[in-house]
């Protein structure tokens, strides 16, 4: 009887080892361990025919043999399952190089992208953003900014008038009078605005009647031209990278004294960004400020040139024409 058990165990273990699939393994399991007709299970039924003194020993041997076969079965099942899963997954391979199926996101207009950058950097430098109207009062666009009536400086500011006293602002600097005058903001402050400006200009690849500016101005005790240079240098580094250098060149704007043109060394050339200077004392006086105590700086920089240089765009007109083949490049 024991011999028979040993032989049957060996046969069962062989069958387990030889089973080629989980399905045939199930058959092996049924054949040897099935409750009704399992061959090992059936040996238990022969127990009754045994002499009583042999029964415990044989029973134990039989249980041990069954347990070994069960372990072998479990182990083999895991192995076969893994192999079969692997096989199935090989068959399920997809072409991962097919394109994405989601809805593609739109693109930010290069001007939006630049304006957002400008805001981010300026806010980091402590500027508070405010907004002014496009249709501006002549008073704020010119008078407040120290433009003498009938001065040649007006020749550079050919304007779109909507009535005798209102025009499309020619510069975002027009906001200064609204903040310092109408709103009566008292120093210290750092104010900035981003917006659209308009001047009668023949349109070509580098000129448009519509353009965008960022204006910043600050009034406090002890503000100097060197402070202006430092702030603009920090702005330029924030916008264009750590190696950017700022250059001041004397220039003239009625609302600043001294007045400078700001350029940054970027991409191997001087990029002229706009005008800047110390706020003209006439303006501070108009705002009711003591010019012995307070000084201020102001700058107005062109926004359109920034993405032009960054992206190598050679025609300013592309920005407002909105050819999708252009916009979808960004």
């Amino acid at each position, binding site marked *: 009887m024991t011999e028979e058990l040993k032989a049957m165990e060996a046969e069962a273990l062989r069958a387990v080892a030889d089973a080629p699939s989980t399905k045939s393994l199930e058959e092996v399991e049924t054949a040897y361990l099935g409750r009704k007709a399992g061959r090992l299970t059936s040996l238990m039924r022969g127990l009754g025919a045994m002499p009583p003194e042999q029964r415990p020993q044989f029973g134990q041997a039989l249980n041990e043999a069954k347990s070994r076969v069960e372990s072998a079965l479990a182990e083999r099942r895991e192995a076969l399952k893994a192999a079969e899963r692997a096989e199935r997954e090989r068959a399920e391979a997809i072409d991962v190089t097919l394109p994405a199926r989601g809805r593609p996101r739109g693109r*930010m207009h290069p001007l939006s992208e630049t304006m957002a950058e400008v805001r981010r950097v300026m806010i980091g430098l402590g500027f*508070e953003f405010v907004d002014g109207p496009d249709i501006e009062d002549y008073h704020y666009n010119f008078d407040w900014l120290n433009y003498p009536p009938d001065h040649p400086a007006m020749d550079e500011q050919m304007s779109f008038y909507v009535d005798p006293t209102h025009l499309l602002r020619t510069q975002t600097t027009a906001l200064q009078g609204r903040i310092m005058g109408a709103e009566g903001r008292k120093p210290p402050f750092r104010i900035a605005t981003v917006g659209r400006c308009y001047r009668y200009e023949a349109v070509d690849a580098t000129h448009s009647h519509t353009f965008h500016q960022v204006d910043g101005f600050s009034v406090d005790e002890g503000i100097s031209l060197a402070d202006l240079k430092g702030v603009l240098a920090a702005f330029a580094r924030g916008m264009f990278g750590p190696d950017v250098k700022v250059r001041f060149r004397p220039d003239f704007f009625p609302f600043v*004294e*001294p*007045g400078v043109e700001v350029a940054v060394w970027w991409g191997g050339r001087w990029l002229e960004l706009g005008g800047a200077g*110390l706020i003209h004392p006439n303006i501070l006086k108009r705002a009711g400020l003591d010019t012995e105590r307070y000084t201020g700086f102001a700058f107005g920089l062109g926004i359109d040139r920034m993405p032009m240089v960054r992206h190598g765009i050679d025609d300013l007109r592309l920005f407002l024409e909105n050819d*999708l083949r252009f916009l979808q490049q960004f």
Partner: protein
Amino acid sequence: MKIPVAWLREYVPVPEDEAGLQAFCDLLTMAGLEVEEVLDTPAGPTLYTKITPNRGDWASVYGTAREASAAGKLALAPYPGYPERSPDATALSLAGEGASVTIEDPENCPRYSATVIRGVTIGPTPSWIAERLSAALGDKYKPINNVVDITNYVMLEAGQPLHAFDLDTLPEGAIVVRSAREGEMLVTLDGVERKLTPGMLCICDQDKPIAVAGIMGGGPTEITSGTVNVLLESAHFDALSIRRTSKQLGLATEASYRFERYVDPLLVGAAAARAAALIVECAGGTVSAPIDVVAKRFSPRHVLARVDRVRKLLGADVDRDEAIAGLERLGVRVDRIATNLDCIIPSWRPDLTIEDDIAEEIGRVALGYENLPETLPPLRSEGGKDSPRGRFLATVRETLVRAGLQDIHSHSLTAPSPLATEEEAAQRVYIRSALSPELSSLRTSLLPNLLTVTRNAFAGGIRDIALFEVGTVYRKAEGGGYAEPLRVTGVVTGSAMPQAWSLKPDVYPADFYFTRGVVEDLLFALGVGPVTLAPSEATAGLTHPGRTATVTVAGETVGTIAELSEAVTEANDLPRRVYVFDLDGDRLMALSAGAGHAVRYTPLPKYPAVTRDLAPVFPASVPYAQIEAVAQKAAGPLLESLRLTDVYEGANLGAGRRSLTLRFTFRSREGTLKDADVEAALNQVRAALVEQTQADLRTG
């Protein structure tokens, strides 16, 4: 201004080699007189300089040489007789040499000098003069004759406009400087008959104008080939007077350009002498002593500058002696008063009037802006922050871009759009004296520009188009003034899933409901809700009458979602189905600002939910919103959510009928729901739907 280098070299050393010339140009540019380019002309290399409006003294060869000399510490050759000592005032009328000068308007003409040259031979312009004038004036230059071109030559060289009259055309050689009288006319040298009005300064003979002072001479008194005797005018005119007359007449000349920028009053004599000498050299004749009427004496301005204050303004510790040396190179005479500087401003610098101007001169010439330090002032105001509008723009752009829409920026200046409503047209803001239709008015809606972009893209073969713009529109405000409403407007057409290659293109079109999704997504991002839509005919004509809805948030109408009418898509070469949304940005911004952190947390459920579907058939005329409201109310407090999962319109339902599959989710916070509870709730729903929304439950 265009200045031949060879001419400049007569007054200041300019290097011959290319690198040296470039360095010279950089010197001027960094001093503020930008050399835009170096042109190649028959007169040799020629600088093209950009003169700022405050520096009329740069509008001459000598003035440019003087700036280079100050900035680069270069030797400056003197201009003979200049600057002269300021002459004392004389009588307002002087005569001699067969001529006379009378100034009747000393305010606008403080000085007038007439030099008589007799016995000249008018001939062609000497080639060396013609060459330089041609280089300096370009196409505007046409050689006239030796005498006239010499006056132009000296104007460019010294900056003093001059005029030559044929003396024999002036009765008794009389010159009267006065304001024009009502009704006076003059044919100017350009052949145009001009109507003069009081206030325009004129050069007159005994009874009529013969030249518009400082702007252009008149035909009858001009130098002709037969001229023998010349009266050479060199005068100082008030800048504002010349500018106003020039504007009024619409006549701008090289002379008016200079006078309106202020010409050095102490140049009158030197320029006249230089021109007279050149005329004698080139055209012969004999020169008499000038008749020089000085109506008002020029006295130089004093500006006090405190060295400490200058240092503070610049933020640089400028050396006092270097500052003084720099000012002196610029022609400023400096008297040291204790630590302060009493600056006597040269006659050619009307722009230097206050201490800050002196600080600028010290900064640019004595210090040099390349030596200006970079400092960061301490931040003493509150920290930086964006404006509400800035934050709104950022959220709108980020959300809509993420939803797959292209951000655009379009022109505010446009031609009036045929799509505008009557109301929009009435409120449209027009540009005065517009030069072209495209620049004639301001947009009243963002939609026309978006549709133009759509049409162009469609014509270019693009089928799936989704765009938006967030920007200002403009209108006349009620009760005067202007309004600049902010709008958020978008256009979608084609497929909603253009990259879904497993779907047929028409399976998921960018339709009304897709557009609604985009809008709701945006409103959610803005923290604005709940959103309801209702059919509207407000934009009839522009949009499809059966596919237009107003969007309402918290009882406020915030915009429209619609399909464009077929008439509009046809007339504008647009795709057949185009969906638009147009939202009130100001209102959304206000609602968004009030939204804050309004969401309160609900504890998570402990008991399971039960989900049941009902699919009754309804008349198509009953709007879903009504069905939803009825069902929600009837379902009672156990209803957790109600969701539409299918809309079926089939022939088997009959015309004008549709089946809606409504998915109800019930849950109790007290315990696990019993079937009977759910069934009771559903029965209430069924009854309400039958009673209030004409539901037919037989098929559901």
